[in-house]
């Protein structure tokens, strides 16, 4: 299935999805999954920059124990809005809505998603939700924490809770529609010969993710409606003073928001499977195990929400059940890590930027996953939950994991998306800076948490200062690391060398069509005759 590619000297010589039409309408009313992916890419990058700016102010503020920059009320808004931006408006859409949107049809040999107009609708819902959330921020902010715990959020907070929650509510439907689109597309539109067990693992991961988006997100919507009922109409649902149940909100919230963690990390795991195989020019070790571990994670993810609530006064027996189920999630996660590592064995390992991100992901996800064992261990969780240990743990998963996977994937498929290469040396340097900066930022937070420093503190006792300064110093390195790709990627869109259809010599249908792909993706729908990652063997 090799493609005969004549060396191109200009991307303009051939009609592709980017140069087919330049009008603003051709973008805003597009139903091309690739263009919608780019609309998402631009939108979530804006949200990432906004969310990141909040983090910068927080880390600067925490350099001194009494707090250097802002009032406690402002600090509380900063961490709330950092969480809302990063989780609901960056991480959840990140890989599925950009790389997934672009690649799911291409990887399965389809011309578009099953419902192209629904796909565009999902972007508009996302934008409406994002505008509402941003308007809540710029009209004074919201200070409930991204978790919106009641009765604080429903009765006591005086900030723009409803606007922010409504933004999340609407963006949730964008997530549901994307999930729906992927499930139908993956079921119905695979190219001839592309059986389930020939699918790239990226597709398996997105399939599992879509199931969670479809089943979990409506529960978040219901929870937000109930919160609004109590806040606006004083219906006693969550506030005991009105006759409500003080823990009900947390059960409902985490029933979505724990699976949501896997909405963020599963697509990233799918990316890593692609990057590791292409970077080592090897078949994945244990295809079936990696594929089904995604499904196992998706299923178990719905049964572990109670581990966020071990210290709420929940029954100790309920605690036991949630603890054992949480430990079980570790097994499919461990299977993935071992299989990725084993895939390197006897490979032909490149040191290109995508591979550096992938290997960074494996290391950081391993640490994030192992520290999850602390939190599944009931007696230990009592001490470290609600502290910086939690903050460190989920940043290792969400940033060290999900975001590294996203950046790795973006670097891997950038030549496909834009038709151009970025400067390789800068990309490798940025990957290294991000890896180092990330560890310097968040490793001290594990120590802070074990020492007992609670999270969400605008000021803190002086003995925690040294570790906080270390964390803030690391964050400045991390920030530089994020800015570098932003610069060279924008540069490469205009000045980057022409990439050609398959610069990595990778397997997968998306590499068998020109870069950037034509609007219809493939001139002829390919026929698949081989398994995924069918790389040739050393002679």
């Amino acid at each position, binding site marked *: 299935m090799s493609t005969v590619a004549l060396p191109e000297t200009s991307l303009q010589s051939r009609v592709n999805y980017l140069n087919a039409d330049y009008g603003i309408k051709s973008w805003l009313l597009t139903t091309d999954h690739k263009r919608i992916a780019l609309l998402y890419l631009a939108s979530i990058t804006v949200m990432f920059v906004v969310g990141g700016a909040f983090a910068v102010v927080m880390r600067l503020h925490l350099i001194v124990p009494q707090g250097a920059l802002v009032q406690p009320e402002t600090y509380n808004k900063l961490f709330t809005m950092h969480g809302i931006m990063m989780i609901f408006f960056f991480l959840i859409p990140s890989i599925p809505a950009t790389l997934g949107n672009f690649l799911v049809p291409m990887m399965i040999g389809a011309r578009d998603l099953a419902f192209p107009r629904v796909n565009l609708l999902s972007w508009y819902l996302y934008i409406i939700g994002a505008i509402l959330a941003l308007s809540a921020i710029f009209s004074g902010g919201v200070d409930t924490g991204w978790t919106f715990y009641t*009765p604080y959020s429903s009765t006591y907070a005086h900030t723009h809770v409803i606007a922010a929650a409504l933004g999340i509510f609407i963006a949730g439907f964008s997530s549901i529609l994307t999930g729906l689109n992927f499930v139908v597309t993956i079921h119905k539109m695979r190219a001839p010969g592309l059986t389930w067990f020939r699918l790239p693992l990226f597709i398996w991961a997105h399939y599992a993710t879509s199931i969670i988006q479809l089943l979990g997100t409506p529960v978040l919507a219901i929870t937000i409606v109930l919160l609004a009922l109590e806040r606006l109409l004083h219906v006693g649902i969550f506030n005991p003073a009105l006759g409500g149940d003080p823990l009900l909100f947390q059960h409902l919230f985490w029933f979505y928001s724990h699976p949501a963690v896997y909405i963020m990390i599963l697509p990233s795991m799918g990316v890593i499977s692609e990057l590791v195989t292409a970077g080592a020019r090897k078949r994945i070790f244990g295809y079936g195990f990696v594929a089904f571990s995604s499904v196992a994670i998706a299923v178990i993810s719905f049964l572990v929400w109670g581990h966020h609530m071990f210290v709420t006064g929940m029954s100790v027996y309920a605690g036991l059940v949630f603890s054992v189920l949480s430990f079980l999630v570790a097994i499919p996660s461990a299977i993935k890590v071992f299989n990725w590592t084993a895939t390197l064995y006897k490979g032909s390992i490149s040191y290109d930027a995508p591979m550096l991100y992938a290997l960074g992901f494996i290391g950081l996800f391993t640490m994030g996953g192992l520290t999850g064992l602390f939190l599944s261990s009931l007696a230990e969780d009592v001490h470290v939950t609600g502290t910086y240990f939690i903050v460190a743990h989920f940043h290792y998963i969400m940033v060290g994991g999900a975001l590294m996977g996203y950046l790795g994937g973006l670097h891997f498929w950038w030549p496909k998306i834009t038709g151009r290469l970025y400067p390789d040396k800068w990309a490798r340097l940025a990957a290294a800076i991000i890896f180092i900066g990330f560890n310097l930022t968040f490793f001290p937070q594990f120590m802070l948490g074990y020492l007992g420093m609670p999270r969400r503190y605008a000021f803190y006792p002086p003995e925690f200062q040294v570790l906080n300064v270390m964390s803030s110093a690391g964050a400045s390195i991390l920030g530089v690391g994020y800015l570098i790709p932003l610069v060279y990627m924008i540069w490469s869109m205009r000045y980057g060398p022409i990439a050609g259809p398959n610069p990595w010599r990778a397997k997968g249908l998306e590499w068998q069509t020109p870069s950037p792909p034509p609007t219809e993706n493939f001139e002829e729908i390919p026929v698949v005759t081989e398994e995924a990652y069918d790389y040739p063997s050393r*002679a």
Partner: protein
Amino acid sequence: MGPGLPLHPDQASTIAVGVDHLHYFLTAITLFFTALIFLAIFYFMVRYRRRSQDEQATQVEGSLPLEIAWSGFPLVLVAVLFIWASSLYFRNSRPPAASMEIFVVGKQWMWKLQHPEGNQEINELHVPLGQPVKLTMTSEDVIHDFYIPAFRVKKDVLPGRYSMIWFQATKTGKFHLFCAQYCGAEHAAMIGWVYVMTPADYEQWLSGSAKGESMAEAGARLFNQLGCITCHIADGTGRGPVLQGVYGKPVKLAGGQMVIADDAYIRESILQPSAKIVAGYPSPSIMPTFQGQVSEEQILQLIAYVKSLGSEERQPERKAAEK
């Protein structure tokens, strides 16, 4: 903990010792697997680095024995962790019978504490060394969380409910008390100190800061003031149930169910008298609700009073234990 770079929190309770052993084991597992994965990756990266642009890999099929091994070994490991951590959690959840009781009310943004002897504190908690202490906690407004890192204990403090933690201090000194559940603007200021004192010092502190009125005595005074006494008459001739000897005992309800007359039940009966009617009394209850008329501290005093009616014989015992 002094300034500088502390690496280990104070270890000042019996619970902390057990939690720390588990913590070291977890840390060892984490280090082992992190080292394993990092070393494997570095080794493969160097050993199998791509030496020319055209170099291909040597394809290796998966291995079922390996898959079983690296699923099975972690499974055994997490089983061990689960059993260890859960049994420890079970033990840490149950206060010894001989625990002394202290009552905690959280509100935005302070901790209010009462000792049975009547001593009240704000953002400070004095406790004796070596004596199990049980805290019964509730909140006036939002969810808070009572956290003493040096003791490795933490529990949410909920409005409308009582939650409980206990500890036995093993070291005298001054230890942080934090609110560990975000509760609004001054969340970070909802902190205080726990003072662990020798039993003799504690006795001295107790008598030095005494109010002259124990919680049960304050409860008795409220019982009169609020008019409870007009219906809840000891000889059974009143319009309400007799409260003598009720505390901690099963009570038969109008529907035939049984309920234990614990703190939560008494609190509910004061605030929502019709929620659970005692068998033989009219429904809805003729008792007015005291919602909004009594503070959480006063409810705790009333409970202490009801308790004192039912457990006269236990009072001297507790006094003796303190001496």
